[in-house]
């Protein structure tokens, strides 16, 4: 890898004069004896590149008596406000402020703060160790010290945690010994005095050993239990993201934010890890070292909170960064990041490229050859916007998004025992919402609060078909919040701050059922009942405590719910107003247009899976909310952006990029769209037959029905759709578009590819009947399949082959059509 020249050499004197120096954090608090704060000095060059100059600057404290400064760490000496100054030749000096309080007062050791910090930093409570779902070696700790009360219990009382019950197995052996603190397992295990599967973590001379021993000698108190003790509410990582040249280093500082508004340096109390050590590594002081070009995240785990910092490793700065026209606000965030990463976006897509891409993305349909020609010939200055508007208003748009949302909302006769009668009503409800462009929050509210027989109430079919509360809730959160809480059903989430109690509190919104006679129902209509109307009420029981669970929102706030009312109306209001709602929606839609979400997978938002473009996500979500959750408007915003309209032709700077939208990346067409495309290009429709029922009858969808228009797709067996990844709607669908052997066999020998190359009504037959020349046939098929005319090379190569096949021209053309629909250019959106 070429090493980038030092900044000074590259920029010269003139540039250095425009450089700025800053200290992070600009303002900090030191509370208590010995409190300290790590500082970082960052130099920003005039081209926007940043560099860690902590070791190069001269540091000064004024007044000097207030604090000591060593290796850019400032330590409290006396109360007051100190100013820190950093100076470096060629840039104006930078300063920062440090507020020092209670510098003479020693802080007591508490469990939640000091002990949990050690258990976190030493890796004891990592999910690979005692923080695993079932703990390890009989000791269970909450991962990342998310539940200090539980951890305190297991350490001071002993016992072996059980996943599915509150009962404790075996003898209770406390991990501390108040009578003989030195004999405590909490000390003898990590020092290796007693065999420890996790090996030696620290020795008797270490500060951690002394802290734990001191805490046990003090009687192993939990500390202030009144709830007044400040809780860690989050972490600030400074800087929040890094762009490094290869081989460069940069220090990160982690500041804890507490519930009382105080802040404290936690850089030495956290664990740093890199999501991808090939790109960048990090040491336990928070120094990030770039390894190779690419992008990753540094994950930071403190006792009770997670955070991450994005790290990009770039090549040499471009000598001249091109000026790139902006389409709309989407480009601001996307292009700003490309600029930071020294990557230039590709050119604007060609007309053919654009019209094929946008037609597939908005309508799941290839543009007809006539539209491609017309579009290429049009001189209208706003012709791309006109095409987008036309597609958004087309019936195919409604077909395609009804299909998309039927997938997401799981319209399926085999899911939860829906019969076609119910599933078709449900499908019609989805389609009507797409057709009328109903605000997405209204759609969500109706679905979330729906009960009884209504079309939206897919989950709430009467009798014994009601989905379990926990499954229904987890699905709704995944669909509308983009978060997967399923893990928390059986245990606290191993990596996230979702507890089992939170899970069941939310599940309880779906868990209140009523008995009328022998029938169990959710609710007949959207109305409140009284106790006279029902014979019994069924409550959801917590799987560990076996106690009835009251509905509680994810943020732990309980809400007042009438005993016989519909608890989900309030839930639906809360969810659709929550910031997660719009974020999850725009991220999901974005994913359909780019093949990956800003958070990817699109329904896996979590602190350890950060967005690639946080500002873009926030801007899209804001825009979506301000526009009344209008899906079509959102899609127009996305497709009008230059980012969306870039060519797939790479340039030297962006060839390797797959996450920053520097060019349009090829995406395999979904099974249904591909099958419809094969049918339209060949001119031979697919026949969808229902499976043979036990009575022996065979049904068939009307000839010409498109795969995306099948109301109950799982009633129709289709080898092609199975092979190419039609998802099972029995669960939240995950599409697998990866190639497999079955696809390869089917392409070479299968009916979809062999059986429809010619024949009555086919495109080839029509062209032959009209006396079309070879060149004309090639062009028509290219326009239909690729939305472009053949290149001069392709036309020549085709002519050369056809010249040898005058004896069997039609056979040759069939082979050509096979090649066309077997090609990657056809099977992908690009």
């Amino acid at each position, binding site marked *: 890898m070429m090493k980038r020249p030092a900044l000074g050499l590259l920029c010269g004197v003139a540039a250095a004069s425009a450089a700025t120096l800053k200290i992070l954090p600009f303002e900090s608090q030191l509370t208590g004896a010995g409190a300290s704060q790590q500082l970082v000095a960052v130099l920003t060059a005039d081209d926007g590149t940043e560099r860690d100059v902590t070791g190069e600057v001269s540091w000064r404290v004024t007044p000097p008596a207030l604090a000591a400064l060593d290796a850019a760490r400032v330590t409290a000496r006396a109360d007051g406000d100190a100013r820190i100054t950093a100076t470096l030749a060629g840039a104006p000096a930078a300063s920062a402020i440090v507020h020092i309080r209670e510098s003479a007062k020693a802080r007591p050791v508490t469990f939640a703060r000091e002990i949990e910090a050690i258990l976190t930093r030493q890796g004891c409570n990592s999910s690979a160790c005692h923080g695993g779902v079932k703990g390890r070696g009989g000791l269970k700790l909450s991962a990342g010290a998310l539940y200090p009360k539980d951890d305190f219990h297991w350490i001071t009382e002993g016992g072996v945690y059980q996943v599915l019950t509150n009962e404790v197995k075996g003898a209770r052996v406390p991990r501390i010994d108040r009578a003989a603190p030195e004999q405590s397992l909490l000390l003898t295990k990590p020092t290796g005095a007693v065999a420890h599967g996790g090996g030696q973590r620290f020795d008797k001379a270490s500060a951690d050993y002394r802290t734990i021993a001191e805490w046990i000698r003090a009687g192993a108190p939990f500390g202030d239990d009144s709830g007044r003790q400040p809780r860690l509410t989050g972490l600030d990582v400074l800087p929040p993201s890094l762009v490094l040249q290869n081989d460069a280093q940069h220090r990160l500082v982690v500041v804890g934010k507490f519930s009382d508004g105080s802040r404290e340096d936690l850089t030495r109390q956290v664990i740093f890890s890199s999501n991808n050590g090939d790109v960048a590594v990090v040491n336990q002081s928070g120094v990030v070292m770039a390894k190779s070009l690419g992008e990753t995240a540094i994950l930071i785990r403190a006792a009770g909170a997670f955070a991450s910092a994005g790290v990009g490793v770039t090549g040499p700065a471009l000598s001249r960064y091109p000026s790139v026209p902006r389409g709309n606000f989407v480009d601001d965030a996307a292009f700003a990041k490309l600029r930071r990463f020294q990557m230039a976006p590709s050119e604007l897509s060609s007309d053919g490229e654009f019209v094929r891409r946008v037609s597939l993305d908005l309508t799941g349909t290839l543009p007809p050859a006539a539209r491609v020609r017309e579009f290429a010939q049009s001189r209208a200055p706003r012709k791309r916007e006109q095409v987008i508007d036309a597609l958004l208003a087309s019936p195919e748009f409604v077909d395609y998004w009804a299909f998309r949302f039927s997938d997401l909302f799981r319209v399926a006769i*085999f899911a939860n025992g829906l019969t076609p009668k119910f599933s078709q009503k449900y499908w019609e409800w989805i389609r009507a919402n797409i057709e009328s462009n109903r605000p997405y929050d209204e759609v969500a509210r109706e679905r979330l609060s729906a009960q009884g027989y209504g079309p939206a109430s897919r989950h709430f079919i009467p009798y014994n078909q009601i989905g379990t509360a926990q499954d229904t809730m987890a699905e709704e959160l995944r669909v509308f919040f983009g978060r997967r809480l399923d893990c928390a059903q059986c245990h606290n989430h191993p990596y996230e701050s979702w507890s089992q109690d939170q899970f069941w509190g939310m599940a309880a919104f779906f868990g209140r059922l009523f008995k009328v006679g022998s029938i169990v129902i959710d609710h007949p209509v959207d109305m409140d009942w009284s106790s006279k109307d029902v014979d019994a009420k069924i409550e959801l029981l917590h799987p560990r405590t076996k106690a009835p669970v009251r509905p509680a929102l994810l943020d732990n706030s309980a809400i007042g719910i009438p005993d016989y009312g519909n608890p989900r109306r309030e839930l639906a209001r809360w969810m659709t107003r929550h910031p997660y709602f719009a974020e999850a929606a725009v991220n999901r839609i974005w994913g359909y247009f780019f093949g990956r979400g800003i958070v990817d997978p699109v329904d896996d938002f979590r602190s350890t899976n950060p967005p690639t473009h946080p500002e873009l996500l926030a801007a899209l979500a804001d825009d979506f909310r301000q526009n009344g959750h209008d899906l079509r408007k959102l899609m127009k915003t996305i497709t009008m952006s230059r980012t969306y309209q870039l060519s797939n032709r790479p340039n030297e700077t962006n060839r390797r990029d797959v996450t920053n939208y520097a060019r349009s990346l090829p995406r395999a067409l979904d099974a249904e769209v591909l099958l419809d495309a094969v049918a339209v290009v060949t001119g031979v429709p697919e026949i969808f037959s229902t499976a043979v029922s036990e009575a022996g009858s065979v049904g068939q969808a009307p000839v010409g029905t498109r795969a995306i228009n099948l109301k109950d797709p799982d009633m129709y067996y289709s080898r092609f759709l199975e092979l190419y990844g039609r998802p099972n709607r029995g669960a939240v669908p995950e599409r697998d578009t990866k190639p497999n052997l079955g696809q390869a066999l089917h392409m*070479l020998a299968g009916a979809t590819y*062999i059986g429809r190359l010619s024949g009555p009504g086919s495109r080839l037959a029509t062209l032959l009947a009209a006396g079309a020349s070879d060149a004309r046939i090639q062009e028509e098929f290219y326009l239909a399949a690729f939305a472009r005319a053949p290149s001069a090379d392709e036309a020549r190569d085709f002519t050369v082959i056809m010249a040898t096949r005058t004896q069997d021209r039609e056979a040759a053309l069939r082979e050509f059509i096979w090649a066309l629909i077997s090609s990657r250019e056809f099977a992908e959106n690009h």
Partner: protein
Amino acid sequence: MTNKASRRNFLEAGSLGFLGLSLASYLKAAPAVGKGKANSVILFWLEGGPSHIDTWDPKRNSNFKPISTSLPGFQVSELLPKFAKNAHKFSVVRSMHTRGNDHPQATHYVITGHEVNPAMQFPSVGSIITKELGARNAVPPHVLVPNWDRGRQYEDYFRAAYLGGDYDPMCIPDPAKPDFQVTDLSLPKSVSQAAVEGRSAFLKVVDKQYRAMNKTAEHANLDAFTAQAWKMLLTPEVRSAFDLSGESDKTKDRYGRDSIGQSCLLARRLVEAGSRFVTAAGYHGTSWDTHSNNDVSHKDRLCPSLDRTLTALVDDLEERGLLDTTLVIAMGEFGRTPVINANLGRDHWPNCWSLALAGGGIARGAVVGASDDRGYNVTDRVVTMGDLYATVYKCLGIDWKKEIMSPIGRPIKIANSLDDVTGEPVKELLA
């Protein structure tokens, strides 16, 4: 290349070059080989759930008499006379204890070892074994025969889920039907060798420009699969594995000329040729689901074919020297209620049921576990699906304690027992 060249020569001559890869590179990826006694499995799938007390665990509340077998002290129902004569070649478990009280849930449970969980899909045991052992001799490693014709639900349970489409079973039609032909496994007669060459010439023209610009991992993967597909299409042995015309009338008769027998016969041909896991699912439409007329159905329709085909399969494997390397499992998704209902039927009973095993690494003549005097509960040696699959994995040389990480980061046990513990091989069942 001349037109006289055989398809095989065509392949070997390296005409795959148009896809930018060589056959050698494909063949280099030699499959991992298990270190167990067995190298393949045939699951004889008794869909619907046989009545255990009317088959392998006779009780006084069955209307059929127990008969003695070739194993001293071991009796089975009089409905299984051939099995009785061959009992010493088999082992029987009478203490299966599983979950799922209806067909979908129970099928999912016994095929994956896990209860249905809407949050995720689980790979089938066949897919796991296929992934662990790898393919042999270009033959599809995982096959399900015949495919279900009632929609997708059941087939889905046999799929690979997140392990990936490579390990999904190839689902092929009913070999007992006169027009039996395996989809996509042979080029239609209309596609001549010249046409194959013509296609590749055109594909080269069509794809050149686009591929020069976009080189993705998916393209490379598809190319590798395409090479493998050509190999399958053009290798006579592969097609021959699916071709029952090579079997004598006598053999066909021995297995039975119905989809039950012919599926098992095809399964034998496939493991002989190199398949790893074949599900012979000739009992269609939850055949064994005898909610009414249990006795008549077992006596006239179900047990005679089970008795005939299961013994034919094991005998045939033995005669061909394949029994030591082929593990045979005959089971359904649960047993049936010990009590007869108002329709003279028996209902679902996952609480306690029986199955039979033979071959590859399985002991001969072991009878494991026991139920109470009416077949309600296991009284001795509960065997879970986790235990059963741990046993199977051990026979195949696969580490049964293995956990596979799911896409959401949840470790999934490949031998999942009750209460979230890993199953243990049933020592009595091991040869």
